[in-house]
């Protein structure tokens, strides 16, 4: 164990000057960034890129659209899941209202992750045994087909991680052009949350003979509903 001052002073001596007392002036960065002209375009490119990564996605404009979309994707599966596991759908405490009302109309009861148990290990186990994890998202990135989620006491990071399927909701207006804009927006909020998760498609690996294989650890199927109102 070395103390910090000693460690830092050693570096300063290697650099041949005392450690600056103020933040060095930031370097100039000027790379032309990827930009789309409007929200609609961003939503459609986002979706296209998300699908190219192997995710499923749709833009919904009404409550009815939403119902149709969920039915089309999951059909009667949730009903089958519930037979074995009443906690098959695990979700954040709060989802966008259009999603909340769709689930109640469909009568697919949601288990709220944070309230599912007091013991974290139990919660992990519940999430791991769930069939579908359901979350919102704070931001999206059109260029890379990415959803961005900040951690929060009412959420739970495991919801988008442990179940074999992950369904996320995002509003069209939350989709940004590129990573730069997203990082800028997050840093404007001050201290970042404990975790910011950026997810681009399903879990993948090419570690065996460079053969692409989906779902080694994280979700195998990923779904995004882009809501446009």
């Amino acid at each position: 164990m070395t103390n910090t001052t000693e460690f830092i002073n050693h570096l300063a001596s290697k650099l041949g000057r005392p450690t600056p007392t103020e933040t060095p002036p930031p370097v100039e960065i000027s790379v032309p960034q990827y930009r789309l002209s409007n929200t609609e375009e961003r939503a459609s490119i986002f979706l296209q890129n998300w699908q190219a990564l192997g995710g499923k996605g749709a833009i919904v404009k009404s409550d009815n659209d939403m119902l149709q979309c969920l039915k089309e994707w999951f059909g009667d599966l949730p009903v089958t899941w519930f037979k074995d596991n009443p906690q098959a759908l695990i979700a954040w405490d709060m989802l966008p209202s259009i999603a909340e009302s769709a689930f109640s109309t469909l009568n697919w009861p949601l288990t709220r992750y944070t309230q599912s148990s007091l013991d974290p290990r139990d919660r992990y186990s519940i999430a791991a045994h769930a069939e579908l994890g359901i979350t919102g998202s704070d931001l999206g990135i059109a260029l890379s087909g990415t959803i961005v989620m900040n951690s929060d006491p009412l959420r739970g990071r495991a919801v988008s991680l442990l179940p074999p399927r992950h369904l996320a909701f995002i509003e069209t207006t939350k989709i940004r052009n590129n990573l730069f804009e997203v990082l800028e927006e997050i840093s404007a909020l001050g201290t970042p949350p404990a975790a910011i998760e950026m997810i681009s498609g399903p879990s993948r690996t090419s570690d065996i003979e460079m053969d692409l294989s989906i779902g080694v650890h994280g979700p195998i199927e990923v779904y995004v509903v882009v809501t446009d109102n």
Partner: protein
Amino acid sequence: MTMYNLTTDQRVDKALADNFLRQATRRATDRLRNNKYKASDELGNWEEWRNAGETIRKHVIANLDFYLQQLIEQMEKRGVHVHLAKTPADAVGIVRNIVREHDAKSVLKSKSMISEEIHLNHALEEDGAAVVETDLGEYIIQIAGEPPSHIIVPAMHKTRQQVADLFEPIAGHALSSDTPTLTRFVRIQMREQFLRGDIGITGCNFAVANTGSIVMVTNEGNGRMVSTLPRVQITLMGMERIVPSFRELDIMLNLLARSATGQRLSSYTTILTPPKKSADSDGPEEYHLVILDHNRSEILGDKLFRTALNCIRCGACFNVCPVYRQLGGHAYGSVYSGPIGSVITPLLEKDWKKWGHLPYFSSLCGACTEGCPVRIPLHDLLVKLRMRKTQSGHTPQVEQQIFKAYRYLFTREKTLRRALRLGAHLQRPFVRNHRITGGPAPLSNWTKSRTLPMVAPKPFMQIWADLNNKR
């Protein structure tokens, strides 16, 4: 661990005789390289991104003391335990203590090159903790007891059948060798471990100084598992792995994902600003950051090699290197292989006897330099390492003599002319069909696999002189 006991020559022979390895290396590097080209071309201004990347890295390294201090302050302010390790042994000791204090039985690891650099697993296992590598590639080589053969695709050298054979004893039943089966096996097998893990150890792709954040990218999601589920997390970072703020992070993440695998962003990019808020329902309660020096400060103080610290460990230089292409990673003998491995290993380990061969694992073709997203002049650094080795007297006597003779002759054109005439005579016994087909060492190194042209009866300088005297 066999390859650690072989000589360089034996490792090279072994690699060259391994056809699967060589084919797999070709296939993998071709794929990664082509993906990278697609991902860099689509930006339309890759060179500008590279410039930005280089500028940022140089700025960080030139102010490393400031940014590290800032990072440490930010971290400690929030209750993260920051540990500074001068040496690999220090770092191992620190991690060992944490594991012991928590009496941890199960340690989960997501990919960390630092843990390879300090040879961590072995030490923890000695203490009786089960260490599980959770990255599929790392898991495979952990079972096989081998070091990574590629910085991004560590088990590139294994066939699916070999992987199936390695998994079978763990599965307790036969496994078919198709990738989906193998992947599914790992998913199920690893699930248990994730849910039970006591301590998570992760690497760190970037640390953001002004927010005190750790950025980690993975494609499998194991990095998220390891940083979400265990109650205690340890992150290992090389002390140079810093960006000033989120602003620069954008550039670096783009360069990394695009150069490493040709993705626009990796499947999972996680920015941790630990520890968890008390009301958060998951994430580690206790967070340790171990910052490793291991002679990085020496490199920092060495103007000739400082740029070596700019590396973002993307592996792009591996994928264009014609030497790596023929050998794969194990022939290098070092934890870090490929061009950047040949540069940093001698600098980190400071042992010419053991690592003196590495600067010569390059034809100096410059492909690495051309491919590096942060413009590290890798092939120049390799030449400079050869220079260091030569100047510190670690090159063979014969070689020194040869270059003395070279200097003598090649500064005296007329004398050289006479020497060439002599050579034209001496070569006769070795000439067949106007080609030289044999000769004494070190010439024989060439003639074993190639012929040489004959020394011309008259060198050009003589021919020219003769022509002009006639005029």
